[in-house]
């Protein structure tokens, strides 16, 4: 595997894979992340995986740049780098007009009907290329070419929590209310902060994701079940409805 090592100052190492948005390359990033997390190399403070790069922040009092690079070279030379097994997540989305704030604009850009847009959005498995922008915000791709649309010229000041949006060949979910420029076509009742009382986030980079359409009353029901703690999370982590 060809990678380039670079520095970000004296306490961060950047591993650049081939610089393009590509599922295979992204999988290698997540494999290496997983291996590094299992290794728990002393001195590593945190790891930030992205589309085709991986950043490792380290404490130079505990490990030197050279030591870290040589350890990573050794890991890369092993053949088990692509053993990464992604999880599969199933996310319910209500595409009702009430939530699909930018459906008209997306219809105009894509020349598709609302029903066709929903069908294309729900009939494909997406990859989680990375988490960023907001804590827990998943960058999912790639969208079919037909759904490609540009970001809003004027970003919205308040995109609601749970909003599902499109931008370029990507789709994503807002984990919290935030300003943002993605074209909003629906909303998920699922709290991206994971299970109640569990402090991890729902999405991890590398996850495979598919969406399914729900009614507004089902949306309300799921919201209520999460609040009361009766929500069946295996619907998200395992079997789709």
């Amino acid at each position, binding site marked *: 595997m060809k990678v380039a090592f670079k520095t*970000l*100052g004296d306490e*961060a190492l950047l591993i650049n894979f081939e610089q393009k948005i590509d599922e295979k390359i992204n999988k290698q990033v997540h494999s290496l992340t997983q291996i590094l997390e299992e290794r728990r190399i002393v001195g590593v403070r945190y790891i930030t995986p992205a589309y085709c790069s991986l950043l490792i922040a380290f404490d130079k009092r505990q490990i030197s740049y050279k030591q870290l690079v040589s350890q990573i070279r050794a890991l890369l030379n092993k053949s088990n780098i692509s053993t990464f097994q992604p999880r599969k997540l199933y996310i319910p989305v209500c595409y009702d007009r009430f939530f699909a704030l930018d459906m008209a604009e997306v219809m105009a850009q894509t020349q598709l009907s609302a029903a066709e847009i929903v069908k294309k959005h729900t009939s494909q498995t997406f990859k989680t290329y990375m988490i960023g922008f907001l804590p827990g915000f998943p960058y999912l791709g790639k969208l079919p070419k037909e759904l490609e649309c540009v970001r809003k010229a004027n970003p919205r000041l308040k995109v609601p929590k749970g909003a599902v949006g499109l931008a370029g060949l990507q789709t994503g979910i807002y984990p919290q209310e935030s300003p943002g420029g993605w074209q909003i076509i629906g909303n998920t009742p699922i709290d991206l902060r994971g299970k109640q009382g569990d402090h991890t986030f729902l999405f991890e980079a590398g996850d495979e994701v598919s969406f399914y359409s729900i009614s507004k009353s089902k949306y309300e029901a799921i919201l209520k079940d999460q609040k009361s703690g009766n929500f069946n999370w295996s619907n998200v982590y395992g079997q789709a409805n």
Partner: protein
Amino acid sequence: METLIGAMCMGKRIKFQFTKPGFHTLVVDNSALGYQKYGLPVGGPMDELAAEMANWLVGNQADSPLFEITLIGPEIIFKEDCQIAITGANLSPQIDGIDAPLYETICITQGQNLRFGKLISGCRTYLAIRGKWIQEGQSALEKATIERLNTINIEKVEWFDSLRNSERPKLTSPVLVVKVQKGPEFELLSKSEKSILFETTFTLLQDSNRMGYRLSPKLPAINQSIISSGVVPGTLQITEDGFPILLMKDAPATGGYLRALNVVSKDLFKLGQLKPGGSIFFQLLE
């Protein structure tokens, strides 16, 4: 705003009360470290050295939570005896109307109040309180997004003799010179753009905060970006329009702008005391 904060002293619960919150008062710590793959900022004190010294002065661990106070201070009434230390920017602290020392351990008696006044140097003051901090029901996400003042508990540990140290470091130079290394995309810049970075005294603009410092002047438009990739506090990004942005502790974990430079780790803390209008000069460390 009134905020009561609980603490434990010899088995007894004590409290201190924020009768004024100040301009921007935060509890900062390093508990978000490791969550960057979920997109969380690194967080933590902007001036790590001042924060560590404050904690040392009250016998806490160097990375214990403490208050970061920016530009305008809060007013605090201590409801029980406790031990505190104030470091970083000189915000003219007073205890019961009498000037309080910086970089010293201060013993507080029940009912005393701490106030701050005119900003004399720096930008951020640190207030450490002796004891073990207990944080209830806070996820890393909540920490990154919610004002945290309401949910902090402090458990007091036993007393030790107070330290004496009246020396305090000062930022006297009108221009803050920081050492930098070339960033991953440095070579994508033209020769003239590179020389601007090292020959210009940049000014910190008003809309700078814990996420990032916006610097002036801007460079010519570079019309280049990268596929989103990791960044760290101290990364100097150049936007497509040529605006330099120096990322700080609450920056997103990833970014799509060119990473031109990185401030070296031992100079990073100095940036925490730079306030809008301040000057900064980059010195390349080969």
